[in-house]
Structures are given as C-alpha cells and as structure tokens.
C-alpha cells in the first residue's frame, strides 16, 4: 500500500535544479506538445533531426519537479541517438535514468514518452525521414 512518494532521488533534484537543454530550438523540425496545465503538467519537446539522427533536443515544461526533471533527462537521452533508438525509449527508461520516481509521479515519465512520440509524429507529418528511410 505504501509507496514512498517523496523525497525525490538526488538525480531528479539535480535535473530539476539544473535542467539540461532547457529552451527552444528555433529551427526544430519536430515538436511534441503534450499535457495541459489543468492536469498540472505540460511539456513541449523540440528536436532537430538530421539524417535520422537527433542532433539537438530542448524542452519547455510547465509542471512539478518530476515533470521538469523527466523533460531534462529525456532530452539528454535523445541527443545524438538515431530515430530508431529514440523510438525504443520508454517512460520506464526515463524514470530509471533518474534513479526512479515516486509512485504518484510516474505519470510525468509517461508524459515524457508521449512528448517524444508526439515529436516523432510531428516529424513524420512534416515529411521528415521520408527520403532518407
């Protein structure tokens, strides 16, 4: 019954206080916009994809500490990997990379996974990757 809810792991706190890749990519060719403030969280993921490779990733997030940390960690994981590798990244992987999340905050990592999926979808919609696949 009792899942320890808090405190956050040191890694979560680190990514919350010093978020990596915070900001926007002006010439992003994949944007994933998920969540909404009413649910407490909203994440916007910017990707710059070149030759099936994620050359840059940034985010803006409105949300709790876990939401910000997962956004930060997600961009870290994404930078420099291929689209195929990116598609394999699950919410669990993000949570694990942060040394775990409190049970009530798992939804934040789910949001990260959704933001990634949305960004990849957006890339497809823009016709990205068609030629090179």
């Amino acid at each position, binding site marked *: 019954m009792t899942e320890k809810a808090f405190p956050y792991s040191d890694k979560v706190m680190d990514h919350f206080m010093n978020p990596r890749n915070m900001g926007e990519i002006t010439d992003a060719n994949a944007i994933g916009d998920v969540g909404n*403030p009413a649910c*407490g969280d909203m994440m916007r993921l910017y990707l710059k994809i070149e030759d099936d490779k994620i050359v840059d990733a940034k985010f803006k997030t*409105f949300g*709790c*500490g876990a939401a910000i940390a997962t956004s930060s960690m997600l961009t870290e994981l994404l930078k420099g990997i291929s689209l195929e590798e990116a598609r394999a990244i699950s919410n669990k992987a993000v949570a694990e990379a942060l040394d775990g999340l409190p049970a009530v905050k798992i939804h934040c990592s789910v949001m990260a996974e959704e933001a990634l999926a949305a960004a990849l979808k957006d890339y497809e919609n823009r016709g990205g990757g068609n030629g090179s696949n």
Partner: protein
Amino acid sequence: MADDRKIYFDHQATTPVDYRVLEAMIPYFSERFGNPSSHIHKEGVRANQALDFARERVAELVNAKSEEIIFTSCATESNNLAVRGFLKANAKKGRHIIISEIEHYSILNLAMKLKQEGYDVTTIKVDRRGLIDPQAVSGAIRDDTAMISINLANSEIGTIQPIKEIAAIARERGIFMHTDGAIAVGNIPVDVESLGVDALTMSAHNYYGPKGVAALYVRKGNAISPLFEGGFQEYGLRSGTENMPGIVGMGAASALALDEMPARIEHLTKLGKMLWKGLEEEIEYINFTGHPEKRLPGHVSFWIKYIEGESLLLMLNIKGVMAASGSACSSNLRGEDEEDLAASHVLTAIGVPVEFCSGSLTISMGKDNTEEEVLYLLDIMPEVVEKLLMMSPLYADKLRGKDPYSL
C-alpha cells in the same frame, strides 16, 4: 546542494511545539505517568489534577466552561464528533445539514458519507475572496435543517468567515451551529460566547501544542453521541486512556496563546503586510488569494500565472524556505489515488482558473518568524519565478502574443 538556511513558512500545516509547552509535558511521560482512571493512588490523582488543569486552560482560551471541553486526538476527530455525534444524538432534528464548499476534508468527506446515508447536504458557495455570505446560509435553512458546520478560517487562503453573523442566524432558527476552528483557535481571538456557536473544533498542533491532541467545545445543554465505545472517559463522549502529556501540552499552549496573542498578532500582521507588499511590487504575474483584510495574520497566499505550484515550492525549498502548495493537511500524495493530484477544491471555489490552478502557494508564518526571513524570501522570489517563467511553455506562448490566460 541545498542552502543550509531553514525558514519554516508552513504553520497552517503544523507548528513546532513551543519549548515552554514541551517543558510542561515532559514530566508526564516518565515521572507523572499515571492513568487518570487510577483515581485511587497518587499517580492517578496527579493525572486527574493535571487533566482538570489543562481542561481549564483550554476552556479559558475560547471563553468556555471547563466541562464543555472534550479532548480528542485530532481536529479531524473533533469535526467528526461534532457533526456525526450531533446527528446521532438528535435523530429527530431533521436530515438536512449545511456546510460550505471550502471545508476541510474531514467535513467534506463526512458530508459525502452522510449523503450516501440519505441526508441532504447544502453546500454554500464562497465569493472570489473566499467569503461566505450569511444571507446565503439563511436562505439555505429548511424546516428539517439539523445543523450548520462552517469553518472559522481556511488554511489554504486564510479567509476568516463571518461566523458570528451565521451563528446568530442559526440560533434564531434553533439550529445547532458548529465551526471548525482548527487553524483559527490559538491564533486569533475566538470566544464561543461572542461568536455564539454551539460547537467548536480546536487543534493543539496548530498553535504550538503537540500533535495527537485536539478538543471539541460543545455548549452545555446540547447532546452529542460518541464516535466509538469504551470506558467512559471524557464524560463518556470520548473513551480511551487520556493522552496525558498531549493534553497537558494543549493546556500549556492554550495558556501561552491567550497570554501572548496580542503580541503575536501584531508581529504576524506586520510580517504578513511586508510580504504581501513586497511580492505585489516585485512579482508581475502574481494573484493573491483570499480576503485582503479578513484573513489569518501572517498568512499570504497567491498563484502566479504561467508557473506551476509544486515546482515553485520545490525551488523555494531548495533555497531553505518551506511553504505549502494547496493545503498540506488535505492533500495526501502518499496514497495511490490519482485524484489526490487534482486541483484544490478551495482554489476552484474562489474562481482561480481551474486550468491553471496548480500554481497556488501558501505562506503561513508563525510567531517565531522574523522580518529578516521575510526579506530573504522577497530576495529570492524574483530569480526563482524568472527561472520557472523561462522554463514555461505557457509563458513562451504569452510572449508570442498567445496568452493562454486570456483565451
């Protein structure tokens, strides 16, 4: 990583036990540890005397008679004892009760339970400052209204209700009037006679007394039934061996509160104004919640556009400031219930846009906080807010001319 500074601004959740209170309690753990029911031997007699003494102090704090005070284990229990206890003992008085939409969960969830059992519950709305209109209460009264339960002050937004006016209406109509004074008693003057209430919930840990002890005042002449059965302690209304050190502590905290209240209020009012004014000046997108004057002293609550509450709280915490987002004692994230994460019922009640509700912060100061601490908070707020604004996609949209709040 964290600043070593430690500023506690979350007194609405709980207060530290005053050292003088703790000192009064200590002997009752290991030395004067008797059970008041062992009235024949010395230890029992001493316990009885201490029990009487504490009861008098608590009664004095709210201008009640000693025999009108029932000790319980927490405000939640007191609230349940007041409402459920009255309804059980007065089954003939009708099956309609009146509460407000900004009650604590111990009243709200009990009301929900009562509805399931066939009671009718009218929930009075509050205005944008969290105030209840006594005339709305008056209008809700029916022939079968058994009781009214409305909180004296709300922990999340600090608003103090016009209980005196509501109680006068209740009395005129012969209706039992309970008020949940959990975070008011001991912090602002509360006088059961001048308020005219029939029952009042008090909570020791909200005015520098210990957790694990609280009380319910019930005006003489009103029958209530116990929540559970046992060996007849507390006039048969609350059985179980008395929490003696806790009760002694509540007595001591009550005496101190009565004594020091004017000075505490003056100090906290000053700190509160200072913080309010400072925040108003430096935080562009701030929206204060609750009533500007009719509020608990030292209580400042607000939400900031484009910023989410927990992340703000967490950043302040890293910088050594402990505050609350929403109501600490009503939100319990330790459960697995996702609903716990929903927007606060109090904020939605006062019309904070539900889509952005998670931005609320409650700063509740205590008697030992200092001006210097307020200045520190005012000092760090702008950069913290700036940092979160920079991270916020909502703010980015606003800068692009698509302000989500004006949609």
